């Protein structure tokens, strides 16, 4: 890591006065020359982050104001609002230029990331102003995921806080390698150099453990504008560049820089373009490297290869496409490629496996539960994923690794993830496009986590299914029955086990080979290490489902009787079986009846508070939406209900 401040660097000392877009000048402008200069400008995306009240929005408002990006009508509207919500007395509160939501203006805080745009003679900037409150960390991560650089603010009076550390860690986790430490509110500490030096030293010591390439520190005041655009006269002891000069001149390293072209070629296929019989192209944005007409191409998922026939770019046919361009590639051979595939060069193929280790940032108020299934979205592919092992949780203050069973909102964890089929990807450190993923809740569709792949796990290719001579079909035939799982779900006391018991007797009488799995015979043996917390319930059901799967493979009719309150676990069990093998039986008995029956006296204990996490009382039961069979056990006797199931099995055999 390179850390610099005036004591350690001879970096450019002159601060450029912005003449960027000469919006307010009536002088003659050579428009043709201007347009030509504009065409050549590059782009810097950065975030401003740090703790609450460190002055992020004020700083960004200052950058907009001093770069003359603010229009008169916007300024006068802000002046009106300053009277109502402002914190600067009679002066215009520049933070109100960026805090765009009503709730933000009322509370005087930033809730969501705001994107702002300004430019100078040298560059165009896209700035993301991110919230400082811990509860909005996910919005901060949203801003950081597309940034090249981070400006981390520190209130000179308060120094380095928990949020400073948290944001610095997330910044480095998301692959930003350059940090500008803006030590703000210097006017409130009498422009004291030793205060600044102490903060800088403390930060550098902390940042040693982060994967940052460069830290530059600048003492400034967003409120007065000192060392933002214009150098500060009162801080003559600082002779480094201003913040603006730094942003204008800093050379961006990392993913979005030109080095991305030197990396292996990757193009995630977004869309297959088939406008007519004669054209079949694969559209997507080049994630890294470059590709030319005639180059060999590997479709990572199928392993098939071909050569590039033509490249259609945004301005027509191209000889070569490079990282960052959105193109359409046609190939010489008709090979099967669809959305989700990753085009690469055959000599530098990505990993194509179904397990990997990754960091994840948890972003949902419902905790992450190991073994629960989520939808995983990669560059263009999508599949089902589950966390098989939460290796550790990271304490953002100390960067210590802690043991944990779940991840809560804003926690960062390191874990192993298994997919239901192989996906092509790279490590995040090698490629921010093809090494990232998000997890989505299957039922609420909320984005619950952001993930960064560390490395592939190759277990999948080592454990191969032995192709046995005697298979499921043969065993089913020997038993003269169709093997299945009858999955009884419902509240405690709903009558699941009673009906399952009656059904098993009847099936047995019919000569069927059955097995009844229930809490009694599983909880005392296989699952005796599990309790009743949410994560233990998930693991309980996963094991039961796997056992049921083996028994179905053995040719049995399995009756599984478990409360199984969560939709996602029932769905997981269903997904393990083949089509038609899983029959969900919802024993639909109202809570009042179950509670009145209370065969084991459990409701009484739960109501008395002696039993925690009891389904229906202080733990949710998610009603099945698509059960094959619904039993009204409150209204009909168990014998009739068992016959109802037999009728279903006969009509679906």
């Amino acid at each position, binding site marked *: 890591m390179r850390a610099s401040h005036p004591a350690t660097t001879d970096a450019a000392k002159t601060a450029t006065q912005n003449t960027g*877009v000469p*919006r*307010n*000048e*009536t002088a003659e*402008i050579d*428009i043709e020359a*201007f*347009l030509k200069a*504009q*065409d*050549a*400008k*590059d*782009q810097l995306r950065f975030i401003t982050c740090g703790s609450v009240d460190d002055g992020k929005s004020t700083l960004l408002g200052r950058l907009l104001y001093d770069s003359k990006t603010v*229009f008169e009508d916007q300024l006068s*509207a802000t002046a009106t609002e300053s009277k*109502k919500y402002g914190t600067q007395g009679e002066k215009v509160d520049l933070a109100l230029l*960026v*805090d*765009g*939501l*009503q709730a933000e*203006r009322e509370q005087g805080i930033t*809730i*969501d990331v*705001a*994107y*702002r*745009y300004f*430019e100078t003679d040298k560059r165009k900037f*896209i700035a993301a102003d991110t919230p400082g409150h811990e509860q909005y960390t996910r919005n901060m991560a*949203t801003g950081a*995921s*597309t940034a090249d650089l981070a400006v981390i603010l520190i209130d000179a009076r308060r120094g380095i806080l928990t949020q400073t550390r948290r944001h610095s860690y997330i910044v480095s986790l998301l692959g930003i390698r350059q940090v500008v430490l803006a030590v703000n509110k210097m006017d409130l500490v009498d422009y004291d150099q030793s205060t600044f030096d102490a903060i800088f030293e403390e930060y550098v010591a902390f940042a040693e453990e982060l994967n940052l390439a460069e830290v530059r520190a600048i003492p400034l005041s967003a409120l007065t504008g000192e060392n933002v655009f214009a150098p500060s006269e009162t801080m003559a002891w600082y002779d480094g560049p201003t913040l603006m000069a730094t942003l204008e001149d800093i050379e961006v390293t990392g993913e979005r820089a030109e080095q991305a072209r030197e990396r292996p070629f990757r193009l995630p296929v*977004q*869309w297959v*373009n*088939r406008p007519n019989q004669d*054209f079949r192209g694969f*559209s*997507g944005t080049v994630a890294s490297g470059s590709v030319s007409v005639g180059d060999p191409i590997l479709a990572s998922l199928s392993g098939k290869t071909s050569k590039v026939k033509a490249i*259609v770019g*945004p301005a027509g046919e191209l000889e070569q496409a*490079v990282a*960052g*361009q*959105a193109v*359409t590639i046609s190939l010489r051979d008709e090979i099967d490629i669809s*959305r989700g595939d990753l085009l690469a060069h055959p000599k530098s193929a990505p990993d194509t496996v179904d397990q990997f280790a990754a960091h994840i940032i948890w*972003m949902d108020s419902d905790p992450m539960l190991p073994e629960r299934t989520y939808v995983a979205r990669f560059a*263009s592919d999508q599949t089902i994923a589950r966390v098989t092992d939460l290796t550790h949780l990271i304490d953002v203050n100390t960067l210590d690794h802690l043991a944990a069973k779940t991840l809560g909102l804003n926690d960062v964890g390191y874990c192993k993830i298994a997919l239901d089929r192989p996906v092509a990807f790279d490590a995040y450190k090698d490629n*921010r*496009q093809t090494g*990232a993923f*998000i997890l*989505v809740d299957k039922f609420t*569709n909320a*984005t619950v986590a*952001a993930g960064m792949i560390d490395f592939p796990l190759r277990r999948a290719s080592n454990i191969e299914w032995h192709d046995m001579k005697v298979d499921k079909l043969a065993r089913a035939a020997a038993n003269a029955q169709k093997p299945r799982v009858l999955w009884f779900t419902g509240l405690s006391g709903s009558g699941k086990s009673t009906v399952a018991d009656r059904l098993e007797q009847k099936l047995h009488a019919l000569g069927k080979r059955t097995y009844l799995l229930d809490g009694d015979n599983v909880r005392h043996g296989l699952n005796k290490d599990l309790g009743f917390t949410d994560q233990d319930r998930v693991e309980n059901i996963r094991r039961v489902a796997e056992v049921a799967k083996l028994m179905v493979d053995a040719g049995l009719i399995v009756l599984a009787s478990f409360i199984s309150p969560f939709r996602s676990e029932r769905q997981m069990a269903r997904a393990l079986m083949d089509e038609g093998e899983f029959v969900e039986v919802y024993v639909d008995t109202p809570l009042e009846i179950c509670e009145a029956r209370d065969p084991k006296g459990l409701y009484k204990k739960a109501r008395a508070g002696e039993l925690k996490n009891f389904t229906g009382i202080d733990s949710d039961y998610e009603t099945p939406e698509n059960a094959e069979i619904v039993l009204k056990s409150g209204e009909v006797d168990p014998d009739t209900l068992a016959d109802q199931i037999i009728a279903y099995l006969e009509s679906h055999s």
Partner: protein
Amino acid sequence: MQSLSHLDRLEAESIHIIREVAAEFRNPVMLYSIGKDSAVMLHLAMKAFAPGVPPFPLLHVDTTWKFREMILFRDQLAARLGLELIVNINQDGVARGIGPITHGSKLHTDVMKTESLKQALDRHGFDAAFGGARRDEEKSRAKERVFSFRSKSHRWDPKTQRPELWNLYNTRIAAGESVRVFPISNWTELDVWQYIHRENIPLVPLYFAAMRPVVERDGVLVMVDDERLPLAPGEVPQEKLVRFRTLGCYPLTGAVESSAKTVPDIILELLQSRGSERQGRVIDQDQIGSMEKKKQEGYF
């Protein structure tokens, strides 16, 4: 190999977003408002699917108060590009005689624009709708995601926006829900004009200065586009050299005095201007936070 410029990067990002929607949604539509931002968005969509054409129709929500030149331009463009164009007019509003002059900008916009848009989206069962909004236009837009989730009743909830990391967009929705997608979120007004210049994108002539009949209302120059604009006794429209920075319903859109007749002229004017483009729009200024409120109710 030359490095990608700022405009090249913006262009690629927008094309990526447009393709993502085509691949992931069942029934997308592109809101086409005839303005410069829509023109750029449509141009990008044509590029995204070349040599084919975009696999979705265009939708224009016609309030019946648009400039006549806009309607003419719209119909010619759709025919030239060979794209399906759906025009929705809120007939209920027409029957009730709703208009900006008789009912004010707020009610007119609610009924003829927001309601009409929801009507069209529901009627055709569109699950994703592209819009040409930009984050630099207005403060609440600056906070909005590229893929902006809408409830079954088309509402935007700024407090529960989905985190949107990298370019991995969460496109999952339940039946009846939808998303609004803004492919040119990260473009500024200047970027749009530079791109129009670079790509030579055709625009409605109203953007360019010409002699037009206008009257002054509350400091705003309103063009007399047809006989529906009531004139005060003795009031005579003045012929002035004017143009428009944005286009909407003509009684609600202020003209600016200008001699800019070409795109470079306009860019030059933009560089020297001291007012934002939405300044001429009456509807944003009804109340503090008015755009946010409109968006929550389903406005684009």
